[in-house]
């Protein structure tokens, strides 16, 4: 039984970690701006495309990987300055529409640059090596992802709890106006949020595309949405929540993808049911259930509406 489920569990943990890195970006931005940054999934995709092009130019990995991460963080910064900052005082719906517009623009831009063809992701030697864990063969990235995710998460939590910029972030997310009255430069704080979020999405893309090997302009949409669900599931605004939510979603998704084979091998079902179709649907069903049962998520704080 353990032998049958293990490969799915492993890939679930790995995908979960990658979702977690994206989900942190969503949850931080939502915590501060109350905005679902629909473009975040596309930033993740752009990081993948950047890696394809930068490594094709022949730069060694120890240059190209940091370069990709820096440019991705820069893109996040630019998006915020161009598309969200002018709408600071506008209704929330306009900002969300602007986010959708950015997502549309990024996808079309990549479509134009790549010609809409699948781009093969370069292999990163260390993390794409094959290893064997308890008899299940998998890539090194499966082990690296959860470890790296946890390290980055702990680093981020420390940053938020013990540094000046972290304190400013917490203050802004509590009350926008009061914190600006207290002398916090809101725009810098928001930019920092976007830079950190995009940087993590860049790290996520390195790991994710090592697993999936091809990038196309739409490949950010689904992971983006799922990471958002993970953020909501864990309680939006909470970083550990987003990570836990992402791992749960990653594991569930991967197990559902293999559910047919698992059930078949365990002798619980006689035929293939085609349940793998529902691996995406499951995530969203989970979202709807969570929103109805516990809208604040696992670790979220309770908020009240003021008249």
């Amino acid at each position, binding site marked *: 039984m353990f032998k049958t489920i293990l490969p799915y569990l492993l890939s679930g943990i790995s995908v979960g970690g990658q979702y977690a890195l994206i989900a942190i970006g969503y949850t931080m931005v939502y915590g501060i701006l109350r905005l*679902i940054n629909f473009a975040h999934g596309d930033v993740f995709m752009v990081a993948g495309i950047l890696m394809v092009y930068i490594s094709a130019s022949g730069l060694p990995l120890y240059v190209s990987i940091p370069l990709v991460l820096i440019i991705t963080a820069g893109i996040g910064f630019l998006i915020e300055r161009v*598309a969200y900052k002018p709408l600071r005082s506008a209704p929330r719906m306009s900002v969300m*529409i602007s986010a959708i517009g*950015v997502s549309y623009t990024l996808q079309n831009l990549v479509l134009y640059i790549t*010609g809409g063809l699948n781009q093969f992701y370069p292999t990163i030697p260390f993390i794409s090596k094959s290893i064997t864990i308890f008899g299940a063969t998998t890539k090194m990235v499966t082990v690296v992802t959860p470890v790296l995710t946890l390290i980055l998460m702990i680093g981020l939590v420390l940053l938020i709890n013990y540094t000046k910029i972290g304190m400013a972030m917490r203050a802004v997310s509590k009350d926008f106006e009061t914190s600006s009255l207290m002398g916090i430069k809101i725009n810098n704080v928001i930019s920092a949020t976007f830079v950190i979020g995009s940087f993590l999405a860049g790290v996520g893309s390195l790991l994710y595309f090592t697993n999936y090997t091809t990038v196309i302009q739409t490949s950010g949409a689904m992971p983006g*949405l799922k990471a958002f669900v993970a953020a909501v599931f864990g309680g939006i605004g909470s970083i550990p929540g987003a990570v836990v939510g992402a791992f749960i979603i990653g594991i569930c998704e991967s197990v559902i993808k293999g559910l047919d084979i698992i059930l078949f091998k365990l002798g619980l079902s006689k035929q293939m049911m085609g349940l793998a179709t529902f691996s995406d649907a499951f995530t*969203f069903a989970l979202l709807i259930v969570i929103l109805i049962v516990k*809208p604040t998520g696992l670790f979220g704080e309770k908020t009240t509406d003021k008249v």
Partner: protein
Amino acid sequence: MTKNINNMQRKKLDPAVLISALIIAAVYVAVFVLEQIMPPTSMLFTVLKKAAVYALVAVSMNLLNGFTGLFSLGQAGFMLIGAYAYGIFTIPVAQRAAVYQYYNGGLVQFSLPVIPALVLAGLAAAAFAFLIGLPVLRLKSDYLAIATLGFAEIVRSIFQWDKLGMLTNGSNMLRLFPTFNDFNIKNAEGEVVVYLSTLMPFVIAGVCIALIVMLLHSSYGRSFMAIRDDEISAEAMGINLAKHKQLAFCISSFFAGVGGAMLAMYSNSVQAKSFTSAMTYEILLIVVIGGIGSVTGSCISSFLFVACSEWWLRFLDQKQMIGNFEVPLLRNGFRLVVFSVIIMVVVLFFRQGIMGTKELPDLFRKKLPKKTGKEGEAK
């Protein structure tokens, strides 16, 4: 938002309304005449047909997002349900074996005429909307948006499920059902006598949009707008929030379903995987460009949107020469880049869109003193 109420209280024969009616009638006549004299393969008709479909879907989305203030992103899901309901019930019995080749000819062994099938498509979408609305409509703004978006994704994967293949043909496409071209009147030799393939989508969309406009001018419509402007005061004035939100959601989905069925007729086939969230985003952008809260705006912008994306900006996708100079950057996909930049400019700098919250008759009226300066803050 006093404008619509002002309209209501006017006497029936308002010259502005009369002029608007004449303009709309002229558009229909022009479409009919053009269709008879121009070759049916002209790009114009492709654009007009698709735009008519999008206009209906955009108006239905506007009813929800612009007039009721419920930010829903489930439109593609409801269109999918409508398109499938239409496809499943209108494929001629003789063709079913060919379409459902992997599923022994499918489950449904009868076919309906086009118009009842369109209504059925709408009803199917509305029924789903009712069920999904029960839990989801309790959510607020962006949570509602993401839940409805999730719902659309769920619908998409359910319709591709192999086990439902008897009904939905699994992940294969539905085809061979009546399309817009079947509206053309043919003589005994099979030659087309009167072209109606562009006029009919206009008529169907027109009737549906007219129904929506009438709804908006009824007491229900005013309740919707009251909910949008302030939920708490609307409730205090005795409007049943849950009931009205559910109503708006179902009605909007009904017309999205009809729109989905028309999209199926336009594209001659239905496949679940084409109804992605990107489609919802496109429709949302149409609504935004036209002006959130303006039916006229949604109609105009869907024509502009479709014409730009399918036709007018096509030249950007090919190499262009000016004399001996080759214009740089022009190649496949550049059209979409230019297009998205235009959209971003509208979203960022012209947030009211083309029409703001004005309607066609308002253009022929003298400015009411009440409206000045307040337009932008209406949301």
